[in-house]
């Protein structure tokens, strides 16, 4: 099949890929680039293991063609923190045992990342609804919810400190 060039920004870096037009975004990220954080659990948008951030929205990268991401700004789990300084959400998942086998974790963290910007001060019920597009088979969600609530608190604290500093 003919290949086409697709350009996108991934974790702040400009990338141009030569892919078949039918290539799914998740395969573009995992196989054409080196971002294997997004996982494939169902290939049908049900499990959310492939969740990444695209132009400021959570998307399931298994049901988006790579060409649909032309010009897009993509953020994956590899792009939100560094080994020396994890993102608060990553820290809180570690702290509150929000993961076991780790397979859903990158998608869960990326959904939380976006969700907490959509709703920085959520109730537990809102968190549960907010992540209901992401399946986990290990944790029973209780500690994932706890991790996200804790991350929300920390992020609000940080943003209050920033606001005070600006004032």
């Amino acid at each position: 099949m003919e290949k086409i060039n697709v350009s996108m920004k991934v974790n702040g870096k400009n990338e141009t890929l030569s892919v078949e037009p039918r290539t799914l975004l998740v395969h573009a990220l995992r196989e054409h680039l080196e971002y294997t954080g997004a996982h494939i659990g169902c290939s049908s948008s049900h499990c959310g293991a492939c969740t990444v951030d695209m132009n400021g929205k959570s998307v399931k990268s298994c049901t988006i063609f790579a060409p649909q991401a032309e010009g897009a700004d993509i953020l994956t789990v590899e792009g939100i923190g560094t080994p020396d300084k994890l993102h608060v959400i990553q820290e809180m998942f570690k702290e509150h045992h929000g993961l076991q086998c780790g397979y859903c974790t990158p998608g869960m963290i990326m959904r939380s990342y976006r969700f907490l910007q959509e709703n920085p001060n959520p109730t537990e019920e809102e968190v549960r609804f907010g992540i209901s597009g992401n399946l986990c088979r290990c944790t029973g969600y209780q500690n994932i919810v706890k991790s996200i609530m804790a991350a929300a608190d920390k992020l609000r604290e940080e943003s209050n400190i920033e606001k005070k500093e600006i004032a």
Partner: protein
Amino acid sequence: MDDVKTPSSEERKSALSGLGTSRKRVEDARFTQGKGNYVDDIKLKGMLFGDFVRSPVAHAKIKKIDTSAALALPGIHAVLTAADLEPLGLHWMPTLAGDKQMVLADGKVLFQGQEVAFVVGDDRYAVADGVALVEVEYDELPVVTDPFKAEMENAPILREDIADQKEGAHGPRRHPNHIFTWESGDKEGTNKVLDEAEVVADEMVYYHRTHPCPLETCGCVASMDKVNGKLTVWGTFQAPHAVRTVASLISSIPEHNIRIISPDIGGGFGNKVGVYPGYVCAIVASIVTGVPIKWVEDRMDNLMATAFARDYWMHGKISATKDGKITGLWCHTTADHGAFDACADPTKFPAGFMNICTGSYDIPVAYLAVDGVYTNKAPGGVAYRCSFRVTEASYFIERMIEVLALKLGMDSAELRSKNFIKKEQFPYTSALGWEYDSGDYHRAWDKALEAVNYKKLREDQAKQLELFKSGKSRKLMGIGLSHFTEIVGAGPVKNCDILGLGMFDACEIRIHPTGSAIARLGTISQGQGHATTFAQILASEIGIPASDITLEEGDTDTAPYGLGTYGSRSTPVAGAATAMAGRKIRAKAQMIAAYLLEVHDDDLEWDVDRFVVKGAPEKFKTMKEIAFASYNQAIPGVEPGLEAVSYYDPPNMTYPNGAYICVMEIDVDTGVTEIKKVYALDDCGTRINPMIIEGQVHGGLTEALAISMGQEIAYDEQGNVMTGTLMDFFVPTAWETPNYETDFTETPSPHHPIGAKGVGESPNVGGVSAFSNAVHDAFKPFGLTQAHMPHDHWRVWKIAKDLGLHN
């Protein structure tokens, strides 16, 4: 001057993060950063992809397979069929249950989704095109999906290859579709008790077919290095060593030339115990093409073809005196094993440990018979987050207890309490022959009833029932009780093996000169956090901080032989091996310390992380000092270095147990169920890491919730899988999942070196009964005795309708 105060024993103990601490997981740094290494993350130079052409029908002769169009497609390198595998003797493979299974369809197909041809191409897209171009002509045959119809006189014969064999791996076969009869207990004695009993409850309890559905599907990368003659296979293997031995036996590649690596595994739950056609085909394709081959199934492949769980029709009779003392238990199970008997059980146990079905109760006499039959369904009965058939057994007895309580007009909490095995009866030999190691069921039960305020719950329920009856509410309240006893940690080599391999496990420890260590085990974590918890066991045994111990599993070239991780066996068996290997290290360390301190070994005592001269606390050698000495001192009679290995053959199984209670609200008009409370008390013996235990309980309860309330692998009469995607196959989201209350009692196992029993599967075993019993309990006042799972909204609505509650 040395004015630094020596930390106290307690301070030093706490610094180890050993047994009993909620140590944070060492695995999480890589997983939270997307740096796990799962099988689909593996990329090798020149790697090709493989995928299956699968049967769209459940039973058919194959008239013709035409691969020419697929082979003509650019990017397709090979298409394998049974005809290609036959010269290698690999078109069939042995199963774990003593049967054999087609790797690729050999003349016929026996279930929908069966592997027919294996297409190899440049990438997964090219392969998908190739798969679509393989033309297969099927001549359809009558289909059997009902196990009770399988043994009828005129039933279509499914396994024509063994139609004439009167003897199977587990004794006589009475019909071409019959696999085995397995019996346990005293048939005559039980019948006599039932005949003479004051009260007998008789019920059919069905535990439906479902699937473990780990979030990561099964897959592998096979790489045959023709230069060195070495085959390496990375794969989703819960038992990498067993896979190596099986691969060697069926491929004739010498075992030392096979290296099996289980990288990070995205959940297993039993699904990744078996050997599947995809592994065999990837290996053959790598040998044929000379390049690495990746096979990773998609979700539909996984749900349709790669194993299943349960599918037991359990007919039970339980007898008791009028005042509720149980006198006997009888069970006949019809086990639907699908097209090939590929159940993953220890060899001598074709129905697993189903004979733990006397549960937590002191039942004087019992009899169990299990008949396995073939149907046109997927093969591979695996223990989905339970030890072998233990959740079936537990669900059976917990339903029978409820049905008996109904018959007796007795509260089922009281009936349980009246019949529990008493603390002083342990070790307790059950009527079906198991020796329960330890337990204190009454204490756990009383604690649970008190924690939920059981009496008040029953009062609330009665009030709700009044509101319903008077037309003021359309909701009912159900209280689901469950007490379970598991049998895990398979197992003693004297009676537990898989394909002749005794079910021991192993740990090898190497202490480095600077006092840190590496430990390798024969198990493999799939989310259980072994790297965290086994280091804790070791920290407490050898006094090296858990954070200074690297733990490795899953590479057969480096790890000692073990039978892998399933059936909650890692802690009972490999955990014991870890403790025992640690003790060997300590024994040698004691000799070194004695030499260094110039005293006799017997004059030393162990204190957390050091050997201290008895009566002279200022004279000691820490493990760190001893480790260095072992590398730099010539000690008479002692070899240099500090290493140990232990192969641990457990003397008995362990018997984790617990008390679970669920409170549920049911909308009679819609069938919608709402979980109001779940309380789970577990007794898993010594607790290694409470944080991880609690996490495991949450997860197992959620899988139990799924199974009991909606999850199933359903077939129509033509053998079509009706639940082959996550649209139809229920996996609860955060929205449907409640919060859980966890609790514990701690009754150590007397035969395990650290008293631990295993916990990962308890919540699935105990949870299913608690959820299902809650549904039954809600409708009890209207005459419901038994309604089969899963209790999805439609089925619950149907219960209400059939009971006349919609008028």
